[in-house]
């Protein structure tokens, strides 16, 4: 049995223009100890997709589908059930460590709260444990830091506090929602290293949401590429980087900035993908990427591609998997 098994997750948010489809039939699974990355542009439904798992998406979202954690259904679970899972079995690290910590409570207390809640520790025992945790996540002078307020710490340190909070009860699954996006590159590397280390030492699985393929290459075992609320490709990290099957994945990889020039002497300018992620009100009977795809055919615009395995361990939702644009270099504009 998978640790996490999400099937056909669909999330809609009501707006004045009608319900917006944020996640459209997303299915994936996660095994114990695995690091899986959900990748996609801003607004493709990645964050919503994982926040719904813990019921953090707010009361207005309409959710359907199934998400089983260790065999137990999470969607529509009682608040009581969810509070016993949150922070204990499944913990979260969020994107912005500046705003994710309560500004008027000391960081030590905020971490201690988790232990007091789930482990029933006394204040003094929780304090010792928190200092241990701070040390483990690489916060210098942990005992002094216990009584610091968030505004007295740097972004990287605050994110370490968030991680300490998340791992306090040794959860089996860590949901990391863009944990390094708000941080400097040098700090990023440290945080990723820490996550890997924690995976090794505790055996927890990590579901990492990011738009940064550099982060993915660094840490993930398996990658799920999302576009406009749908999963478009899923593969092992090596396969995905070596041989992307979906045009969106390929363009994402090409958009990674590299330094210097290519061997052919061609100028390496920054590349983007023309267009933006569409806001969907209905699930269209088409490939949602067709509008931006360099090799889209008529079929792509009238029929939704199913999700099929092209080679072992690599699956894609595309009518022309693995194809390349016929004229090289015109696919991606800038």
């Amino acid at each position, binding site marked *: 049995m998978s640790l996490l098994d999400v099937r056909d997750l669909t999330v809609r948010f009501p707006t004045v223009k009608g319900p917006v489809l944020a996640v459209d039939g997303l299915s994936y699974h996660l095994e114990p100890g695995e690091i899986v990355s959900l990748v996609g542009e801003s607004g493709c439904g990645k964050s919503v997709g994982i926040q719904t798992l*813990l019921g*953090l998406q707010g009361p207005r979202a309409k959710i359907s589908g199934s998400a089983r954690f260790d065999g137990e259904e999470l969607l529509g679970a009682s*608040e009581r059930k969810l*509070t*016993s*899972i*949150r*922070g*204990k079995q499944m*913990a*979260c690290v*969020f994107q*912005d460590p500046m*705003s*994710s*910590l*309560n*500004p*008027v*409570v*000391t960081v030590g207390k*905020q971490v201690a*709260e*988790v232990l007091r*809640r*789930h482990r029933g520790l006394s204040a003094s025992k929780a304090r010792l444990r928190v200092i241990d945790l701070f040390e483990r996540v690489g916060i210098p002078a942990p005992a*002094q830091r216990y009584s*610091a*307020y968030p*505004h*007295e*710490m*740097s972004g990287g340190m605050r994110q370490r506090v*968030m991680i300490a*909070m998340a791992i306090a009860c040794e959860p089996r699954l860590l949901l990391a929602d863009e944990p390094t996006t708000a941080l400097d590159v040098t700090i990023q590397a440290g945080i990723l290293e820490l996550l890997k280390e924690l995976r090794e030492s505790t055996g927890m699985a990590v579901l990492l949401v990011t738009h940064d393929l550099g982060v993915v290459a660094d840490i993930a075992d398996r990658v799920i590429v999302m576009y406009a609320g749908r999963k478009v490709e899923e593969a092992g990290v090596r396969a995905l980087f070596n041989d992307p099957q979906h045009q969106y994945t390929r363009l994402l990889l090409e958009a990674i900035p590299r330094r210097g020039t290519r061997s052919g002497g061609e100028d390496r300018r920054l590349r983007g993908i023309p267009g933006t992620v569409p806001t969907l009100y209905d699930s269209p009977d088409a490939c949602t990427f067709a509008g931006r795809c360099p090799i889209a055919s008529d079929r792509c615009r009238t029929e939704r591609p199913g999700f099929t395995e092209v080679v072992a361990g690599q699956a894609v939702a595309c009518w022309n998997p693995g194809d390349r644009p016929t004229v090289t270099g015109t696919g991606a504009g800038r």
Partner: protein
Amino acid sequence: MRLLARAGSALITLLIAVAVVFLGVRALPGDPAVALVGQEGDPAALEAVRRQYGLDQPIAVQFVKYLEQIVTGNLGTSVRTGLPVSEVIAGAIPVTLELAVVSMSVAVAIGVTTGVIAALGRGRLIGRLVGVAALIGLSVPAFWLGLMAILVFAILIPILPASGFVPIGDDPVAHVTHLVLPALVLGSAFASVIMRQTRAAMLEALTTDYVRTATAKGLSRWQVVVKHALRNSLIVVVTVVGLQLGTLIAGAVVTEQVFVIPGFGKLMIDAVTTRDYPLIQGVVLITATAYIVINLLTDLLYSVIDPRVRVTSGSAA
């Protein structure tokens, strides 16, 4: 250092307030000497009274003299009663202060609780009910509410005294029962203000990332609301309470009139209607001082609730 600067600006504010009142009172029509001696008073007696209170001197001289007196703690002599102004005020202040503190406590208790309920129950019946109740509390004039309260609780169901004030030394039980209605009436409008501010602050706090973090930790709804959302919302509440407390001290006028309480508000009205210049000046001086002191205290309270305001904090980010 910051406190010193605040105290300095407070002093200047106070000086301006004193000057404005001093001039304002003298710009009003009516002669206090006439008020004292009577319309058909003997011109010689009028002259004597004017000289006695320094009213015959130029305004600038009167002002400087007045300032000198204030500094030495002498607020002058009440024209009407002949008693020292400081003594008259000192007699009225404890009464009003007690009324204000009790009303404000009632208002905070009711306002914060209902504000939280309104925020949590937004879009549901309970949230709307609280909102309507707050609007009523805010819109109903104090004098009407006071009269209705007297009608219901003192006359129809005579469980509380209708008016008056009993010093705590005379009869502690009567002291408390006499305070109940005025405190409720005075507090109701402020409860509404606090409720609305609490509700707004809570609604904002509930959407913040740190509240999401608190929820993701597995804390119960109650813990999330009280320990995380409410604690941050209280910063706003403290500001409102601080601002309103000044208003309460000066603004118990109507309530004190209705319930015949010998407090500061009643004193103020009496002073104005009898053109008791020294007393008016003293009353305003004390009111201004009260406002300024309360503002200072509010500032200090911030730093207790919000650590980001503690500028002296040693460690840096």
